[in-house]
C-alpha cells in the first residue's frame, strides 16, 4: 500500500510556484510486490505530469526488506510459547503487522522467526498507547515471560526439550 503523507507547494497567495512536492511511504509484504509498487509509483510520478506538460522527478529510498518468518522457526516459537504458557498464551497472527524491522536482514540469511510479546499495561484493554507513542508503557510483569521464551527457544532448538 502507498500513502501520500505530505503534499506541498507554494509560499503565498499570488505566486504560482515552480514545483510541487510529495512524500510517499510504500509498504509491502514480499519482494515481488515491493518491486511492482516501487516501479508503479515511480512511473506514475514521472509520467502523469508529462501528460500535463510538466516534468516529474522521483527519488526512491529503500527501507528495510519485509520480515519473513521461516516455517520451522515460527513452529518452534509456537511450541515454546505453548509449552510455557499453554495454548491460550500463544496467538497465531492472522495477518502481518505493517511496521518494519531490520531483523529482516538476518531472516533473509538464516532460518528463524520474529515474534511479539504482549505487554499491555493492566486495565488498558487493547487501547494502550502503541509503540512510538510518547505515552507508550510496558507492563514489566510480562518481562519474565520474554526471558523464559528466549530460554525455551534455545532449549527447544538445541536439546529437544520435552
Amino acid at each position, binding site marked *: 500500500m502507498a500513502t501520500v503523507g505530505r503534499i506541498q507547494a507554494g509560499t503565498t497567495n*499570488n505566486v504560482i510556484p515552480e514545483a510541487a512536492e510529495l512524500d510517499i511511504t510504500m*509498504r509491502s509484504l514480499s519482494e515481488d510486490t515491493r518491486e511492482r509498487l516501487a516501479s508503479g509509483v515511480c*512511473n506514475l510520478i514521472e509520467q502523469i505530469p508529462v501528460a500535463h506538460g510538466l516534468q516529474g522527478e522521483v527519488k526512491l529510498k529503500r527501507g528495510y526488506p*519485509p520480515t519473513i518468518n521461516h516455517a520451522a522457526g515460527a513452529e518452534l516459537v509456537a511450541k515454546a510459547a505453548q509449552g510455557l504458557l499453554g495454548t491460550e498464551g500463544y496467538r497465531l497472527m492472522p495477518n502481518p503487522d505493517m511496521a518494519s524491522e531490520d531483523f529482516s536482514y*538476518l531472516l533473509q540469511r*538464516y532460518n528463524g522467526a520474529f515474534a511479539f510479546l504482549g505487554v499491555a499495561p493492566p486495565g488498558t484493554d487493547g487501547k494502550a498507547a502503541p509503540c512510538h507513542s510518547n505515552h507508550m508503557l510496558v507492563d*514489566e510483569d510480562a518481562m519474565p515471560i520474554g526471558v523464559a521464551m528466549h530460554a525455551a527457544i534455545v532449549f527447544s532448538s538445541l536439546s529437544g526439550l520435552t
Partner: protein
Amino acid sequence: MYEQLLTEAQALQSQTVALRREIHREPELGLDLPKTRAKVLDGLSGLGLEINQSQATTGLVAILRGARPGPNILLRGDMDALPMSEDTGLPFASQTPGHMHACGHDAHTSMLASAAHLLSKHKEDIRGNVLFMFQPGEEGYGGAKIMLDEGLIEAGGKPDSVFALHVAPELPSGIIACRTGPILAAVDTVHGRIVGRGGTARCRITLQIPYPSHVKWCRRYKHWSPDNSAYLSQLWRQLVEYRLARPTM
C-alpha cells in the same frame, strides 16, 4: 522444564527490571550507544561469555558455549531509542529531552541480558552455542545489516537459526504472537517533485502550474495497491480521457 524456566526467569525479575529502567532513563539514538553498551556489558559481567564487539557500531555479540557441540542459536535484542520526548510521567522516565525508549528496546535488551543469565546456569545442559546479539540502530539505521556486513554475526560461528522478540502494547500482557511467512512489511519511501514554470498569478496562461496533475495524483492514488494488475492500463486510459476532456491544459 518449561515451568522451571518461568520460575528462574521470575527469580531474575528484579535485575531485569533494574536494567530496563536504567536503559530507559538514559536513551541513546542510532548506532552509537556507549552508555547503553556499558550497561549491557556490566549486566553480562561475571557470566564468562565470549564477547565480540562491533567496530562499526556499539553493538556486540556475546557467546555462551554449551557443554557439548551442537547448533548455534542467535537471539537478538535491539538497544536504541527514538528521537521524541517522553510524556509517561514514570519515575524512571527519560532524562534526555528529545530521546525516548518508546519502542520497548529497553525491555528487549534487559530481557536478553537476563536470558543470558538464565541460560548460563544451564550451560551443562546446552548442546550447542547461544549467540546473544545486542544491536543498536534498529530505528532506521540498519544496525543489523551493518553487524552482518562486518562479519560480527558469524565471528563466533554461523547461526543455524535466529530469533527476536518485540514487545506489543496492544496485545494482552504475557501473550506470544507469531506467524509463518511475512510478519512485518518492507517500507520504502518516495520523494516526488512535479516541476512546471512558476510566476505571478495574473498571467496563468503562460505558466505551467504544477498543481493539477499533483492534486489529481493524490486524490486518486492516496491508497493505491499494485495488486490490481489492470491498474496501470486503467490509469493510462483515465489519463488519456483527462487530456481529451481538457485540451487547453
